[in-house]
Structures are given as structure tokens and as C-alpha cells.
């Protein structure tokens, strides 16, 4: 049982990390806690679903289309809900509320179009294959999602640390005024950041929609609190932090169910969060006092 639980935890950790990446990216570059991120995740899942069911695209094509779609939604979100606030030098709390309003709108539009019911991807869209290694079961789908998640994580890290674009993003994150003086097209960089974060949310939406068969306008809600916990655990704005945070939360949840009591699962997670924050007030990999404009 122990090894199966370890596999369960690794799998769940990948799920949490994948969801949290876009969340933490926006915070890292712009210092915004974008509470509409879970809504982009939900829209990604629906775009993928529409691609598969009405356009009859194969899933490997639906995934990039959904990423593109939710990436564009990400840009729209920035143009409508965040850019005007940046222009007015609004306080951070204002952007938080604006993101809440935007997420209410996104969820309600989704409900208007797709209804409140829970739907799933068609059964034959992905081959069901269970591997059994000495009593431990893993599905092909789980392995694929784990693989795609790892690729996305590595690619994102490379993008930010190893490319000119990433350099520009980091400059914007450090200080927008200085970045502009250095000739970096700040507005364009912010737009790209929102596109990437939206696309990441969309990828998570399609993949987790495949894994958990519960696509609905409200699917973002339950993930939201987990996502927030994950990015804060790891250190806000930190890509590796989001990954580590995801695995810590997953192991805490799975192991408390396995060896303690499922009643206490969430209590254990939040007590753990509090303890980690008390020891490391900026998360595990966060830097002290990243004060922003």
C-alpha cells in the first residue's frame, strides 16, 4: 500500500504544480494575485472539450488549441481588468478585487453557454491502459500528464532563466520603470506574460479535465485554495517553489489519509502551511521582502 500511496502523491503533486505554475508566474512578473486564474483553467477545459466534441479534433490538437484560446483570454483579462488599473497606479488590493469581479463574469458566462452540468471528455479520446508494477498501478494517462507537466515546468524555467524574453520578464518583475528605461517594451512583455500564464492554465484545464472527468463552470473553485496554498508554500513568484509546494501539499494530503484519518487531511495541510510560513515567512524558496511598487 505504501508504494501505491507514494505513486498517488507524486501524481497529485504533478496535478497541483501544473495548476499553480501560471498562478505563480503572474505573481512573479507583475506582483498580482490573479484570482481569475482558476476561471482561465476552467475555460481551457471547455475549449478543449468543444474542440473534441463539436470540432472532432484529436486530443493532441485540442490541447494546443485550448492553450491558445485561454492564452488569448488571459490577454483579454489583462486588457480589461488589469491594464486600466496599472495606468492609474491603483493599489494592489484594487487589482485583487478586479480579478474577483472578472472571475465572476467568466464563470457566469461559462454557465450561460455550457450549463451547470458536469461533463467529461469522450471515453475513446485517450487509450485506457493500466500498468501494474508489483501491485502498484499507474495509467498511461497519468504517465502522460506527468510527462507533459515536467516538460512544461522545464520549458518555463528555461524560458525565464535562459532566453532574452525571460530576461526582459525578470527585468519587468524587478522594476517596470527601470525596465522601460532600458528599452524593454514593458507593455508587450506583460501581454506575453498573461498569454503564457493563460496558456498554462488552459493546459492544466484540459489535462486535469481528462484525468478527473469533472469539467464544469465551477471546477476552478476547489482547485483555487489548493493552488494558493501551493504557491505560497513554495514562495510566491517562484517556479521551482510552485513545483515543490505542489508535491509537499500532495504528500501531506495523501499520507494523512493513508496513515492518520481522512477527516484530518485538510486540517493537516493548513497546519503544515502555517508552520512552514512561521519558519520561512516568505515560503520555502521565497526571498525576503520582495517589496514592489
Amino acid at each position, binding site marked *: 500500500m505504501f508504494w501505491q500511496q507514494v505513486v*498517488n502523491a507524486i501524481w497529485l503533486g504533478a496535478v497541483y504544480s501544473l495548476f499553480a505554475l501560471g498562478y505563480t508566474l503572474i505573481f512573479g512578473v507583475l506582483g498580482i494575485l490573479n484570482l481569475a486564474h482558476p476561471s482561465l483553467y476552467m475555460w481551457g477545459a471547455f475549449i478543449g472539450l468543444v474542440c473534441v466534441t463539436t470540432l472532432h479534433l484529436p486530443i493532441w490538437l485540442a490541447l494546443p488549441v485550448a492553450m491558445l484560446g485561454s492564452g488569448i483570454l488571459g490577454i483579454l483579462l489583462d486588457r480589461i481588468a488589469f491594464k486600466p488599473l496599472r495606468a492609474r497606479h491603483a493599489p494592489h488590493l484594487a487589482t485583487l478585487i478586479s480579478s474577483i469581479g472578472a472571475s465572476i463574469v467568466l464563470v457566469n458566462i461559462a454557465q450561460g453557454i455550457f450549463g451547470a452540468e458536469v461533463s467529461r471528455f469522450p471515453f475513446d479520446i485517450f487509450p485506457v491502459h493500466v500498468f501494474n508494477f508489483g501491485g502498484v498501478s499507474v495509467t498511461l494517462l497519468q504517465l502522460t500528464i506527468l510527462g507533459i507537466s515536467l516538460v512544461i515546468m522545464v520549458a518555463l524555467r528555461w524560458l525565464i532563466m535562459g532566453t532574452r524574453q525571460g530576461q526582459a520578464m525578470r527585468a519587468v518583475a524587478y522594476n517596470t520603470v527601470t525596465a522601460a528605461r532600458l528599452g524593454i517594451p514593458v507593455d508587450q512583455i506583460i501581454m506575453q506574460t498573461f498569454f503564457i500564464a493563460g496558456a498554462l492554465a488552459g493546459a492544466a484545464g484540459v489535462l486535469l479535465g481528462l484525468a478527473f472527468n469533472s469539467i464544469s463552470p465551477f471546477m476552478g473553485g476547489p482547485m483555487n485554495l489548493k493552488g494558493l496554498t501551493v504557491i505560497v508554500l513554495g514562495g510566491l513568484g517562484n517556479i521551482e517553489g510552485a513545483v515543490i509546494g505542489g508535491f509537499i501539499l500532495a504528500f501531506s494530503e495523501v499520507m494523512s489519509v493513508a496513515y492518520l484519518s481522512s477527516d484530518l487531511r485538510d486540517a493537516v495541510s493548513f497546519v503544515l502551511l502555517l508552520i512552514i510560513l512561521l519558519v520561512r515567512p516568505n515560503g520555502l524558496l521565497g526571498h525576503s521582502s520582495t517589496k514592489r511598487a
Partner: protein
Amino acid sequence: MKKTSLTVFVLLMLISILVTACGGATTPAPTAEPVGEAPAATEAPAAATEAPAVAASNLPAEITLAAVHDLSGATALYGTAIQKGIDLAAKQINEQKFLGEGITLKIIYEDAAGDPKQAIAAYEKLIANPDVAVILGPTLSNEAKSADPLAQEAGMPVIASSNTASGITEIGDFIFRTSLPESAVIPNTIKVTKAALGLTKVAVMYGNDDAFTQSGYDVFKAALEAEGIEILTEETFAKGDTDFSAQLTKIQSLAPDAIVVSALAEEAANIMVQARTLGIPETIRFIGGNGFNSPKLAEIAGTAAEGAISGAAWNVASTVPASATFVEAFNAEYGANPDQFATQAYTAAWVAALAIKNADSVDHAAIRDALTQITDFESPLGMFSFDANRDPIHEPVVLAVTNGAFDVFKP
């Protein structure tokens, strides 16, 4: 200074509390408190009693039923199914001129959005509206516990169609429901399955932060104990969870005869898919209550749902004659099969119309009395009556998923 401002704060609070106490004392007595809102509570029915008094024993040309249901938010799933059921009933009632020539039934909807506060606000608005004859709703038991007392105080009949928790009709003699409570469904299911499958030890899984799934668990537990079936473990999950593999892995290691699940259909479907993926064999069946009974279960779980057993108030496979005609009409209207929520809501709307017709009045007290008199009404749920506690009486069924759809359980 800091201290003084704190002292001031504490003092002011104390004074405020004293004055609140005095304010409470000026009204006659604490027991008379409900009278405090009497203008709202007593005037509405009074206005309603006057109207029919003028029109003697005749119904007005337009009769208004109000439906308070969750049409937005995460529970809109149920609210919208219920709405379809009510709309279909209203359409048939009007087409058949059931209430008489030239008399039409109108439904007004108020959204409660899954929030007891919004349910209260909606109830208050409807109670103040002299046209409203009966309230259908609310969707959730939580909403009912907050809002139904208002209707009870105002003497407004309420017919719920989706509240299955205990303590709903106990709120008062104006509160009825067409939804069979879990306590009328589950013990029967356990008895039947124990006899058929020879259960001796089971694992239980339930959502512990949801009123519906927790109350289902309470009933299951009592029923299992009554039948002398051992509970190996009780695993819980939270509303909105999608990954259940940790709980299922634990259950797998205990090798139960069956897994008893109190969950909503969407959660149950994922539990089944993940259980089969983990290698829990199909001989270990899933047993559930009302929550399982939705076409969504097999739609989402696919072959993993095969063999799942559900106790229920109603199902599409029902052999009741009125059920077949209802399913046909529902399909013609919406192009899909109804679920239990739609059926119970459909029945609630019909029962309301029947009571109004029998009372030949839209007076709230008269309708209430007529509701208690309803016996052997031929509904899709079966021959329908209310018992002395205003809960429905009809036979529950035990169903099992066979070839992708629920059918009557044959051991």
C-alpha cells in the same frame, strides 16, 4: 491614550449591549419575538383570504406558484433540472385546463444561488407578494432550514422536492416535501443487498462537509449496524475533491465485500473510475443512496459504473404507468431523460395544482389543508400520498447499473 480608547470601546460595547437588551425587553417577551415582524407575516395571508372571499368559491384567472431554486452557482445543476420538471408540469396543467377554463398557472422563479441568505431574501419577497399561492423549493436542505421558518410563520405552504435531510418537515405544518428522505430509502437498500450479495464487511466513503452526503452517511451507518454488517473503515473527502486514490488505496488494502458511498453522482463517478483503475475488482460493488441516482453516474464513469447499486425514490426504468408517460413528455420537451430531481419537482408542481383545485381557493390555509388530504395521487413516483409528517409515502426502489444505465436490481 491607547488604553482610554480601548476603555471607551469596551464601555460603548457594553452600553450597546445593555440597550439591545432593553430594546428586547420593551417588546412584550422574548417568546413574542416572531410577532415583531408581524406586519409582514400576518398581512400577506390576510390579504389573500380577503380576495377569494369576494370571488366566493372560485379561483382567480391567474394562479401564481413561486419556485425558489438554485439557478446559478455550483448547485445550479439541481436547480436547473428542477426548473425543467416544474415548467413541464405547468405547461401540462395549462394545456389540460386542469384548474378550469380560463384559469392559468404561472410560475415565478427566484434564484437562491445555493446561499441560505438569498433563500431567505427570496422567501420574504414572495411572502409579501399577495399573488403567491404556494412556494416550491428550496433546492438545498441548508436553505430550507433557514428560509422555511419564515414561510411557516407567515402561513405560506411550501413544497420541497429535493430536500432529503432530516428535520425539514419538522419545521412546521406548512412544510411539505415530495422527496423521499434518505431514511426511507437507504435501510431498504442495505437489507436487499445484504440478502442478495451476502455482505459481512464493507468500507464506507462519504463527503463529510456536505449536508446531503453527511446525512446519507448517518443513515447508512445506522442501517449497516442494524443489519450487523461490519464497517472496516470510514473514509471522507471534501466537496469539490476530484482525486480519491489515497482513500481508495487504503480501502483496497482492507478487502471489503462492497464499498458504500454517500456522494453526489459526479463525485461517485470519479470514485468508481479511480477504484477500477487501482485494480479494485468488479466483484466489489458500489452501494449508494439517492445521490447515485442520476444519468450522470454512468455517463461519466462509463464501464466503471457497471454493477453499482443505488437506492432511490425514482428512476427512468420505473414501471409505474404515470412514469412512462412523464418520461416520454419530458423527452419530447427537452430531448433528454429526466433525473430524479426533475421528477420530484414535476410531482411537487402537480401536487400543488391538485391541492389548489381541491381547495377551490388560493387561501394559504385552505391549500395547506388540501395538501394533507392528498392520497393516492397517480404520479410518476407511484401512488403518492403525504404521511402525517407531510413526508411522501411511496415505495423506494433498488437499482443497479446494467449496460450503462440504471435498471431495477435483480440479484
